Every structure is written in structure tokens, then in C-alpha cells.
């Protein structure tokens, strides 16, 4: 393997401390060209300002905590290579949208986890299937790439969703994708009714205007937009059934 070369970046970072006007700080950093954007942010923290607060834990896209915006686009910086940006480029680093801001680029993840708790669909499976020889040994009914079970609860879809911006009470893409999996996998009628009631609501399913931003930014191809389309068909069919079986 070739040795890494130095990659220079100018990080223009959104700064916010409660009771002060937000501003941008500019931090020149140098990292190996094999590094990811999170490494560059950590370098800025170490070299320039220890009060720069950002969320991070696993550094390999499993915890989902580090989501933010780079040049306006939702990214997981732990798996976004600095090499995606030219040597010497300026990167504008800003917090995710549609979350309460704690400080700097650290957001309060409560809206995400509250919604996930409401739906109650787990993301971590006791036994994870392996894809081998181009085939996947998945349980029946579970899709390969665009399955909700790949979700890491990063919240990028909530940040990118225009309907979320218009209605802060909107259930949002990831929770709806989770709801779709509950309906696809559970035959428990009480659970199904609870989910149907939750999503067939003015802040539920019908808020989605199919902008597909959620699917665009998802780092794991969960494809919430398509899950929501399927949900709309399921809910319409349920209503139709009820109409004729009263």
C-alpha cells in the first residue's frame, strides 16, 4: 500500500454557545489523505480549540452519532473521506437541521430516539445474516440493501427532510421506515393497530411529499422514501377493507 500523503483543508465550522450570536470559526488542518472528515474535525479540536463540541463515538459508522452537514449536504463524517474534497479546499461544517442545537455542531438527538421508541422496532438483530456468493441468506420478507434493519439511527434523514422542516411534530422518514417493517413482520393485531393509528395521522404518513431527500442522504441505503410509499398503499388498502367490512 502507498504511504499516505498530507491533505490540507480549511474547516469553516459553525459555532454556537447559548446566549451568544452564532458565528463561524476557520481552522486550517492537515491530515493524511486516507483520513475521514471526522479525523479532520478531531484534529481541529486538538490543534485549535478544545471547546469545539461535536458528537462522535465509534468512528466506523455503527453508532450513528456524528451526523452533520458538509457544504450543506448531510454526511456521516466518520466514513466521508477527506479525499472527496480537493487538497486545500474549504469545508463548511454545520449541525444537522431539524434538531435542537446544544452547542457548536452538537445536536440534541432526542427527537430521533423519541420517535424510534414510539415505533419500537429494534435495529440490532440477535443474528445478522451474511451475504455470500452474491446471494443473501435473509429471512423471508426481509429485503437486502434497502432494509430498515441496516439503520444506524444517525438522523441524517430527519435533517434532510423538507416535511420535517415544515412540521416539527412530523413522525419523519426513519420512524416511518421502522413502522413499515413492523407491519411487514408482525401479525400481532394490537401492535398493528397501534402502528396504523400512529402513522395515519396529520403528523404521520400523509406529511410526506415524496421529496426522496431521506433516501438520498441515507448512508446505509435504508430507502425510507420507498418504505413510505409502501406504507401509503398498505394504509389505503386497510381503509378500503374497513369501508366494506363495517
Amino acid at each position: 500500500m502507498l504511504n499516505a500523503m498530507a491533505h490540507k483543508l480549511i474547516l469553516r465550522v459553525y459555532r454556537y454557545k447559548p446566549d451568544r450570536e452564532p458565528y463561524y470559526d476557520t481552522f486550517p488542518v492537515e491530515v493524511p489523505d486516507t483520513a475521514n472528515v471526522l479525523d479532520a474535525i478531531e484534529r481541529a479540536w486538538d490543534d485549535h480549540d478544545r471547546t469545539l463540541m461535536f458528537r462522535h463515538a465509534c468512528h466506523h459508522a455503527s453508532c450513528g452519532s456524528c451526523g452533520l452537514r458538509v457544504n450543506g449536504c448531510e454526511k456521516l463524517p466518520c466514513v466521508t473521506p477527506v479525499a472527496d474534497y480537493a487538497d486545500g479546499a474549504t469545508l463548511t461544517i454545520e449541525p444537522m437541521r431539524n434538531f435542537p442545537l446544544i452547542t457548536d455542531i452538537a445536536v440534541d438527538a432526542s427527537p430521533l430516539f423519541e420517535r424510534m421508541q414510539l415505533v419500537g422496532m429494534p435495529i440490532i438483530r440477535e443474528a445478522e445474516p451474511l451475504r455470500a456468493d452474491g446471494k443473501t441468506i435473509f429471512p423471508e420478507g426481509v429485503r437486502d440493501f434497502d432494509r430498515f434493519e441496516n439503520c444506524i439511527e444517525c438522523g441524517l434523514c430527519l435533517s434532510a427532510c423538507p416535511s420535517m422542516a415544515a412540521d416539527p411534530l412530523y413522525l419523519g422518514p426513519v420512524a416511518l421506515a421502522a413502522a413499515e417493517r413492523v407491519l411487514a413482520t408482525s401479525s400481532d393485531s394490537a401492535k398493528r393497530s397501534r402502528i396504523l393509528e400512529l402513522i395515519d395521522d396529520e403528523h404521520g404518513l400523509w406529511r410526506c411529499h415524496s421529496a426522496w431527500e431521506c433516501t438520498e442522504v441515507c448512508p446505509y441505503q435504508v430507502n425510507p422514501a420507498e418504505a413510505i410509499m409502501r406504507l401509503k398503499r398498505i394504509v389505503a388498502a386497510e381503509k378500503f377493507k374497513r369501508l366494506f367490512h363495517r
Partner: protein
Amino acid sequence: MGGSNGNKPYHVIVIGAGSTGSATAHDLALRGLKVTVIERGEIASGTTGRNHCLLHSGGRYAVKDREGAIECIAENMILRRIMPDVLELNDGLFVATNESDLAFKPAFLEGCASCGIPTREIPVDQALKIEPYLNPKILAAVQVPDGVFEPYRFCLEFLATAKKNGAEVLPYHEVVELKMSGNAVTGVKVRDNRTLQVRDIGADLVVNAAGPWAEKIARMGGVDVPVKPTAGVMVTVQRRLNQMVVNRLNKPSDGDIVVPQRQTSIIGTTSWPVDDMDAIEIPQEHVDKMIAMGEQLIPLVRQTPIRGVMVVARPLVSKPGVDEREVSRTFECFDHKHDGVENFVTISGGKTTTARAMAEKVTDIVCARLGVKAECRTRETRLESYRLYYN
């Protein structure tokens, strides 16, 4: 509740919200103490976050570190009960890739048996059916109850439960000074990194659970702890390559394990001492070594694009003149009363798998120091969902 001083419960500050600090906060709160957790950044943003994610069966230590191995298998079984929703339980395989590995097998099986770690030898052809990407030249395969955890949510489950029991968790707060009165610690001075305000928080006792940063905190109280920050590189690849954790059937060495976690596999690790835990450079030769060693277990490692490379310091409790691979992975608790400082305890060493046991030990010591009579109940207390941390 036993955790009181008259009507007022004793107040304990825990420094660090990695796995040790989080589990300690839970144990203290469950025993009725008032708890404040202080973390300079995000939960699990230090050593715990950048984790190999291995729920140890103890197999890796069964030959050279029996004490560590017994601790691992016991804690593995407890964690399966108390935090099932953050675990993947696909088990693990120890595979022999050459004659030297094969020669290690009898000692390995004997070691596991004497530590109470269940093993099952699997014929090679069957192992290759279960693990289609495994090196087809392997000579033996032994299954053990390894597992995989998600480290951020591991901490959140402990903290969610601690909060439910009254604990206060303060991320984005950095300890800048230990408050002292004579030779006794009376609290901490913290900088709230959100507002940049500095304030004092008083306490009856302070627990230093800062992992590889423990030495830095201990020095604020004028004491030393023999914690040896030891860095390790881990490489993650763009897809999952194995069902089970794949270990080399030999004594622990660099690049001898591939942990599958959800849609990735993590190859690790290396081991070298560092002084500055906040700025560890990733040596390219370590990355190359991970690929070269990982490839011996799973050849496809070489062709799979790298997803990320992480490096972090682990807190090994040092023993003079001993190589860092030989330092026991078990933990130590230091009551600084023995160094002449009251109300100050450090817990360090260990690994994420043993965080609950570490918490039990330090909480026992804290309770004894404060005269609190309360039994540990963390073995059987099912934790709250990690999602409730954000309630």
C-alpha cells in the same frame, strides 16, 4: 435505601462516561446514591466508542490469563440477560491457520474447559459452509460463545437506567480541577463546554473512571495511578465478511481477530504505548499489517474496500518491566486513601465486556468508604432501552 447520610443521600461524582463510568453510575444509583456523571464530550467518545465491539467469551485469555478469561465468560452471560437489545449473538470461531496454531489447540481447549468457557470443535468442511469466506486452508475450528456489542448504545443503556434512578448525566463538561480540603477531595471544578462557564460541584466522593486519561485526573489530586495508555489500530471494511467472530487459534497477537458487526467487519488490533491520548497518529504500517494478518483468516479482506481506520488508547494497568501484550487485561481499583488522599477512588484497566464487574467492585469500595450498606443488584437488573436515555 442504604445510600443515605441521615436524610440526605451521599453524592458521588463519576468522571468519564465510557463503559466503566456509565456502568458505575448505574450501580451507584441502583444502591440509592446521588450520582453526577461528568464527561468532557459525547457519551462514549473516548476509548469505549472506538471499540473492537467484541463481547468476549474469554477464549482469547483462556491459556495465558485465566483470571481475565473467567471474568469474561461470567460477564458475557450477565450482559446477555441485562442488555439483549444491543448485542449480536452469532458466537465466535477460533481457527488454526498453520501447524503452530494447531499445536496450540490442546492447551486452548483445556484452558477454556478450566475457565468454564463452552467450546465445540467443528469439522473444517462444516466450518467453511457456515463461513464461506474463511481461509479454505484452515486446519481446525473451535466455536465459543463470543458476541458483538454496539459500544455507544452499551453506555446509553447503563446511563438511561441510572437516570431513571435519579442520576444526573453531564456530557460536554470537562473537569479542570479537583476541589480539595486538606487531604480530602470535596468535589470538582468543571467547565461547561456549551457555555464556557466554570463552576464547582461538591461531592462526598469522586470516582475517576477516565480510562486512559485516569492518570491525568489522578494528578489533579496529587496522586499517581499505574495506567499505561496503549494504542491500537482497527480497520473496518465496506461489507460484512463473517457470520461469527473469527479469531486465530493462538495466544493473542497483532491482527488476530475479525469481528463482524452488522454490515461491516472489524480487523484488529495492534498495541503500542503512547503518551498523548488525544493525538495518536495512525501508522500506515499498522493498517497494512491488519490487512495482511486479516487476510490469513479471511482472504477477501484484501479485496474489500476499507470503510474506516480508527485508533484509540486503551487503559492498561501497568506492571513494571512487562510487555504491554502481557499486562493482564483485568482491572484494578485504587482507593487513594492509601496514597494519603481521602474520598477519591480510581477504577481502571479492564475492557468493555467487564465494565459491569468493574462497576460492582468500585461501588463496593465506595459504599464501604461511605458506610453505605446496599447489595449490588446489577447482575439481575434488566437495563432500560438505550433510546430512553434521550427521554
